[in-house]
């Protein structure tokens, strides 16, 4: 048995418009130990009841500050972590399972369909194994193909990720390669089983600008050609803009805003998204950013109170935010979901402030 690549069109055709992944009320709580024989009473609510879907071939960006739960979410989706609640329904052409409930050999089978690319290309590879060993390992684990067949498949992938001539790379070791080349190997390893879903956790944040662009281009090209869906985890909104069809903004375990990429960038509605966007430096000295200022750094979600998670840092918090539970994600525009009670009021307040600033400038 060998692995062959499918294309985007035959993948989505067989799915009848159903989402590839459907995440419902996904939750991850880490217990904080209070001594050896005491059962934990405190929990870090790393991911706290999030819902979203990913369509076949779609790339969803998960953005947020460190500690917001974005990596934990990614790891749960490929079963590297066991969620403490909720469901992850994964539908492929001939496959439908709740990933959260898979066990033993089912997990192994699932891994043919979902793979992961890690952030650090220097740490994610065994230095004592050749490129061939590294890239063909998923096939070896799944007992697919004979060694010559695996070699053919690896050569094919190396060519696909732009390492040419592939024969020259087959029996080299990671230390002989540059960071960009290693990340290409990581992409090849993730795609060797022809998965339909890949979680990419900050795959370009360790790379230099010029190399970053080529890896980003490679990943988009392959996603288009092979019909792979990505969950693209990043803290860099500018990178997300180039990689993702939709963006979900996470804050302390909750998704606070989600929508099509350009829509989020042009019309952010949640105060956290606004602040995040206004803090991104712009590579053009002639542009002045309009500041939306919020307080300090992210806190930890240890036994968080029921009200809005962002309340402590929100400059617009009002009575309603303090007395109501965390706001639900509500549709405010096409596909544009926001979790905030005061979207309209905030827009008015900001507009008034802007007018004031303009008036003063005149």
């Amino acid at each position, binding site marked *: 048995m060998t692995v062959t690549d499918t294309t985007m069109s035959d993948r989505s055709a067989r799915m009848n418009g159903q989402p590839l992944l459907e995440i419902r009320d996904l939750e991850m709580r880490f217990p904080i130990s209070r001594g050896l024989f005491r059962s934990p009473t405190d929990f870090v609510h790393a991911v706290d009841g999030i819902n979203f879907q990913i369509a076949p071939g779609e790339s969803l960006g998960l953005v947020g*500050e*460190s500690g917001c739960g974005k990596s934990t979410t990614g790891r749960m989706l490929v079963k590297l972590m066991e969620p403490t609640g909720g469901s992850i329904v994964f539908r492929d052409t001939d496959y439908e399972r709740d990933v959260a409930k898979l066990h033993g050999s089912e997990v192994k089978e699932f891994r043919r369909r979902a793979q992961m690319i890690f952030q650090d290309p220097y740490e994610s590879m065994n230095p004592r194994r050749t490129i061939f060993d590294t890239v063909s390992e998923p096939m070896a684990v799944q007992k697919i193909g004979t060694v010559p067949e695996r070699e053919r498949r690896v050569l094919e992938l190396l060519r696909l990720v732009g390492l040419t001539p592939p024969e020259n790379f087959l029996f080299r070791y990671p230390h002989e390669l*540059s960071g*960009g080349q290693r990340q290409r190997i990581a992409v090849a390893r993730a795609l060797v089983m022809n998965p339909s879903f890949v979680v990419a956790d900050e795959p370009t944040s360790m790379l*230099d*600008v*010029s*190399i*970053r*662009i*080529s890896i*980003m*281009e490679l990943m988009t090209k392959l996603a288009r050609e092979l019909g792979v869906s990505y969950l693209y985890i990043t*803290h*860099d*909104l*500018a*990178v997300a*803009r*180039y990689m993702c069809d939709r963006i979900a903004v996470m804050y302390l375990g909750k998704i606070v805003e989600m929508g099509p990429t*350009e829509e989020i*960038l042009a019309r952010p509605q949640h105060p956290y998204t606004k*602040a*995040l*966007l*206004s*803090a*991104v*430096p*712009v*590579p*053009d*000295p*002639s*542009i002045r950013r309009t500041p939306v200022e*919020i307080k*300090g*750094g*992210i806190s930890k979600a240890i036994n968080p109170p029921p009200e809005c998670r962002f309340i402590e840092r929100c400059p617009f918090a009002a009575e309603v935010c303090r007395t109501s539970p965390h706001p639900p994600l509500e549709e405010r525009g096409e596909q544009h979901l926001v979790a905030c009670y005061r979207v309209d009021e905030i827009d008015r307040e900001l507009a008034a402030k802007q007018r004031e600033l303009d008036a003063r400038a005149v």
Partner: protein
Amino acid sequence: MTISVEDLAARQVDPTKPLLEVDRLVMRYKIKAGEVSAVEDVSFTVHQGEAVGLVGESGCGKTSVALSLLRLLPSNAEYVSGEIRLNGEDLLFLSNEEMRQRRWKEISMVFQGAMNSWNPVYRVGDQIRETLDTHYRGVMDYDQQRTHMEKLFTAVGLPPTMLDRYPHEYSGGMRQRAVIAMALACSPQLIIADEPTTALDVIVQDQILKELKRIQKDLGMSIIYISHDIAVIAEVTDSLGVMYAGKLVEYGPTASVFARPRHPYAYLLLRSTPSITGPRRQLAPLEGEPPDLLDPPTGCRFHPRCPFATEQCERDEPPLEEIGGGHRVACWHHDQVPELEGALQR
């Protein structure tokens, strides 16, 4: 003796006067395999009150320049030629002890991992006090030191009570602010900030950069920012130098370099930075890998990756030449670079 630091008062700044002049600096690292040409013929001037940025990819020599200025290079490094003049005095001719007295007091530094360099078993205040002890021995008494440190903390936006806390009680952003407070402790004329915000989240990064910029203006200091992040540099600097493979390939007023990059490398680097504003334009990929500095390419070091390379580029090294308005470029074909714009549109 009176100390100017007492009030953290603004220094009189004359923007036409040079503070630091780096003149044809050449620095190499000796390793088993040979000599690594890390800084090759780099010249630039930092004026009083000016913020200068150095950008480039990893291994381009930007950090080596920073360490050279502070004379903090590892023992296998060798200054081959050139001068580094601070207020006209060549730092390379100072004894180690004389140089030690100038660090923190005249040139101080904020390094990338600096927020993790606090000693975990001492209070942060006591660690800053050590610097004051070294440079103001017998000048400030204990209480004066305390008052001074409280002013420093207020200046960087930390509550003075944090002085009595240990590093683990600080968040990452607060630790980096404390590092900046320490860098300001002796009221230096020049701060070298090497990737000062790289490990921080974007909102915290924004706050710290604003703080640094404000302090620099208020106190009349000069800053050299070193970063791979072009967007950050664009926002905080007055002048900008682009480095490639140990060489300064383009230097000029930040606005001018951004609006009209004339070195093909600088052009591609600036145009390959994704941005969240403006139209979503095609990013320019840079083909190939940076050269091995053990055996750098002849002539122009960028020629193996350059779309305009000719025989001349392979043979002769282009000098860093003025093209008007203080904008200098080291390229034989800098007048052709605007053509890239058209090529990218296609």
